[in-house]
């Protein structure tokens, strides 16, 4: 009883607070100080047409490094936990139909190509490394759907993942040595605003992140696929 009364009073108070906020709120059209700085200076300082990409990769580059590390730790933990369980190898999933396997042959290169487009054009259009990596992983998922017992080359995936992760950090250190600070993109030429080869090191960094995320997510999907039991 008292608990319900408490909840009702709490909700009413919250409603009055939010309602008074909504009634007295006036939209402020002018940008605050920090977003105004980003909107004005991105094109001249970093050379990227997409402001969000410039913020993610350059101004807040350290944050992105942390995100990549989190994903790496998650992938490693999943691999560790799923490797220890002795899964029965002789499972018999229902084979896929002819239409699905034909469509997989047709669509797999297209999906991987689209993923590459997403992460190489990250500084021009929406998208970037994480989205492109997820698209590539979806392509590998389609491969697993058409043939559930397909085997990826784990060595190759791990190689791509570790090489791209290491090069990402090396490029960051190069920025610290040749440019102004860690993950600075201006040690390569900025180029012309709006073209593919512009914005210094941003396309390179985003390509590396895309390859790393794609390899990690594909590895996770393959590990999940390996431990499926026969129902």
């Amino acid at each position, binding site marked *: 009883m008292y608990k319900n009364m408490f909840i009702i009073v709490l909700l009413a108070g919250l409603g009055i607070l939010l309602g008074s906020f909504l009634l007295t709120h006036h939209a402020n059209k002018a940008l605050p100080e920090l977003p105004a700085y980003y909107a004005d200076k991105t094109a001249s300082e970093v050379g990227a047409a997409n402001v969000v990409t410039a913020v993610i990769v350059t101004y807040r580059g350290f944050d992105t490094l942390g995100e990549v590390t989190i994903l790496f730790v998650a992938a490693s933990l999943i691999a560790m936990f799923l490797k220890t369980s002795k899964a029965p190898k002789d499972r018999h999933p*229902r084979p*896929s*139909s002819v*239409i*699905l396997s034909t*469509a997989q042959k*047709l*669509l797999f290169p*297209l999906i991987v190509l689209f993923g590459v487009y997403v992460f190489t054009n990250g500084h021009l259009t929406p998208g970037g490394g994480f989205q492109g990596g997820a698209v590539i992983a979806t392509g590998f998922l389609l491969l697993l759907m058409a043939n559930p017992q397909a085997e990826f080359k784990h060595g190759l995936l791990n190689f791509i993942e570790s090489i791209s992760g290491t090069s990402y950090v090396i490029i960051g250190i190069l920025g610290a040595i040749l440019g102004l600070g860690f993950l600075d993109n201006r040690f390569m030429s900025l180029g012309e605003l709006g073209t593919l080869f512009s914005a210094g090191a941003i396309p390179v960094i985003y390509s590396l992140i895309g390859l790393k995320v794609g390899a990690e997510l594909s590895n996770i999907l393959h590990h999940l696929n390996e431990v499926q039991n026969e129902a």
Partner: protein
Amino acid sequence: MEIRMLIGSIVTLIGAIFIFLGALGIVRMPDLYNRLQSGTKASTLGTILSIAGIGIINPAWAGKAFIIISFVMMTNPVSSHTLARGAHHLGIPLSKKTVIDKLKEAEANEKKEEQ
């Protein structure tokens, strides 16, 4: 100029009507397989026409619109085929008015050949 934009908007409107009719079919049809029929065919055609209309209105967007159309045409039939096959294997009943079930016959034939 004006004529082209008018044509494009009418194409988009036809596509939207197809989408709405497809959604109506999803609600009204008697069993799952008929619903899949209307839900996939009509929705795919409606989406294709809508995006083609946008591409006609804005010729600079025609390239990207064409890519989206080709993707939708390639992917959507595959997913609905797989869903229909899975539902048939799951044993979801057909409506009482259905007269022919080729997939059942084919599976029975396969079983006979295995034995």
